[in-house]
């Protein structure tokens, strides 16, 4: 069987020290197995000179593409951009801080010979109590109020064949679609266990931010809550207004001006909350209708430029047909 063209997508954020060892490790895994591959480094806002390290690498190591995005610190958008730009038959996304390059062939094989999609499941997760509790609450909330079963697999270490990739590219509506790959495409996924090679870079605050962003992108549910409160508030004001009228009708010695003032503020608040509820409802509608486009802006794109001397010896390392050689 023809060896597949493999694209490796690697988001980069302030990883100056880690890039070169990682790329060397990936290259040593890819080179003996695949006749064609590319490593796509997607920088999302590094400020430590990571891209200078990459520039130097482009002169030494072939088959690398380096893209810099204008987005700041958005790993999932970086992966998303990589998915748009990769040309391979199989794409593998991975986090250079935590994901083992030796596992790449297993992922590629699972995708090409299995269900078209393979996601990693971490077996040595070491999360703090706070993160574990937070994670449980998040999963519970999504299950109960959003009716979304969030899978436990990784969203940064996965492999997709081009068919699976095409399916998700066409159906995505926000940058968190990878988490819901199965839901959006209907494609079942293989889950491959792996061990993390380093600590997760995300703190509890980072994870909370991502969780909140997810909830807000995927439903207008919190908005619904607000709409409900708004209606409740305006309803209460209506009741209050009726109470004021009752007092006026049945009580003697009502203070001069109290009725008018109370009615006026009651009416104002009633209108305010009603208008507010309607606006919130429309906003929710807009959010659901809007399709996400132009999630990222590319600042620069560079490729390897390596001069390799013509080989003197007439030796090759593969018998398959390769054009021109």
């Amino acid at each position: 069987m023809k060896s597949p063209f493999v694209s490796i997508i690697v988001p980069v954020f302030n990883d100056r020290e880690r890039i070169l060892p990682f790329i060397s490790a990936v290259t040593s895994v890819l080179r003996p197995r695949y006749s064609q591959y590319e490593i796509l480094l997607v920088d999302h806002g590094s400020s430590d000179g990571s891209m200078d390290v990459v520039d130097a690498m482009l002169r030494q190591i072939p088959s690398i593409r380096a893209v810099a995005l204008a987005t700041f610190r958005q790993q999932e958008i970086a992966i998303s951009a990589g998915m748009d730009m990769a040309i391979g038959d199989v794409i593998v996304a991975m986090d250079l801080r935590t994901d083992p390059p030796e596992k790449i062939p297993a992922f590629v094989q699972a995708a090409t010979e299995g269900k078209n999609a393979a996601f990693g499941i971490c077996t040595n997760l070491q999360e703090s109590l706070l993160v574990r509790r937070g994670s449980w609450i998040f999963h519970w909330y999504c299950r109960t109020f959003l009716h979304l079963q969030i899978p436990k697999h990784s969203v940064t270490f996965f492999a997709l064949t081009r068919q699976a990739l095409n399916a998700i590219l066409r159906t995505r509506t926000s940058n968190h679609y990878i988490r819901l790959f199965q839901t959006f495409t209907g494609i079942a996924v293989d889950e491959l266990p792996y061990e993390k090679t380093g600590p997760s870079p995300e703190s509890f605050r980072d994870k909370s931010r991502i969780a909140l962003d997810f909830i807000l992108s995927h439903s207008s549910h919190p908005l619904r809550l607000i709409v409900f409160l708004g209606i409740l508030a305006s309803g209460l004001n209506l009741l209050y207004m009726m109470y004021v009228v009752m007092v006026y009708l049945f009580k003697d010695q009502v203070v001069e001006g109290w009725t008018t003032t109370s009615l006026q503020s009651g009416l104002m608040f009633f209108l305010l909350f009603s208008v507010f509820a309607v606006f919130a409802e429309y906003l929710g509608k807009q959010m659901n209708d809007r399709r996400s486009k132009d999630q990222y802006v590319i600042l620069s794109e560079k490729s390897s430029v390596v001069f390799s001397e013509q080989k003197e010896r007439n030796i090759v390392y593969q018998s398959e047909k390769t054009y021109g050689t």
Partner: protein
Amino acid sequence: MSNAIGVPPVDMLIIGGGFFGASIAIALRRMGCRRVVICERESRLGQRASLRNQARIHNGYHYPRDFVTAVRSHANYHRFLKEYASCIYDRFDHYYAIARQGSKVSAKQFWNLFRQMEAPIEVAPAAIRGLFDEYYIEEVFRVQEVMFDSCKLMDHVKEVCERLGVEIFLDTEVRYVRQTATGLEVDTCDVRTAEHRTFQTAHAFNVTYARINTLLRDSNLPPIVLQHEITELALVDIPPRLERFGVTVMDGEFFSLIPFPTRGLTSLSHVRYTPHFRWTDDGGEGEDVYNMLDRYDKRTHYPLMIQDATRYIPSLEGCLYRDSIWEVKAILPRNEENDGRPILVKKDHGIAGLHCIMGGKIDNIYDILQELPSVLASSIPEGQIPITARI
């Protein structure tokens, strides 16, 4: 035609028999120069840069972000078509496809610009639109942009040279140029026999494109700062159902699949995979660029080109690879980041009478021909016929 030292001196000696060199020779002869000589190191005219390119005659569509260049390309298009009518290849439909992501110009902007310029543009029919992947391509336009057959072009130019009495010395490599009391001495070498032959000339034009610095270095003259690229143009047979189909995907020319008339094949070039290696000649020590090209391990990037192209146009899967054309390109550092390709003119470079001319686009020829009088104006030697500007 034998030529020993002492025979009537040359007025104009053109080093490099490509399209630019030969056209300049013709123009100089028409301007009234008595003896015009071309020295070309290959055994035929126009074997290097003139042949090894996409063979596109620009009509402006390639420069949507550069209004001035677009307008001037468009203006020159019809003039070129008229003058070289016998060398044109137009038996295909040319489409420009605008990509959704990464394109710095939108379909709307593209459309508006060329409507404004009154360059032919129309939305492609549904059958053609259907060849493109909807996700990656925003819009497809049909335009008017044809190719030239390099072989026929050079045959035409050669025929004009012979008719006007321009002398062509093939298999003749110019080794160096030296200043003498009376003008320039040009030392040449026959590449077959290693026999040397010297010319005395009033003016010499170095029109050797990417190899321009080899002559300068060998003559102990200052080299010109240039960017070089080793490029590969893949040649393929396209599937029968795409027989009349030619496409340029924009922006920044992602890739083009257009006829290559000289070989009866279709050329495929890709902005990422066509350049194999890039370097700067900063004017210090430097190696001959063709030497570097010979040394380079020429492994085709065709699999990469077609892998990417099929994402945009799945039918391209049926293409059959035939060959690759390799060449060294020269770009001015000032144009490294943009699409501009002006012609570099260095008159009296290092020594009086030696003029370096480097152009990057074949259809830009008229710009340099118009400039010739002013290149010569300041250094007309005694007894030379006064220059009249009409070419």
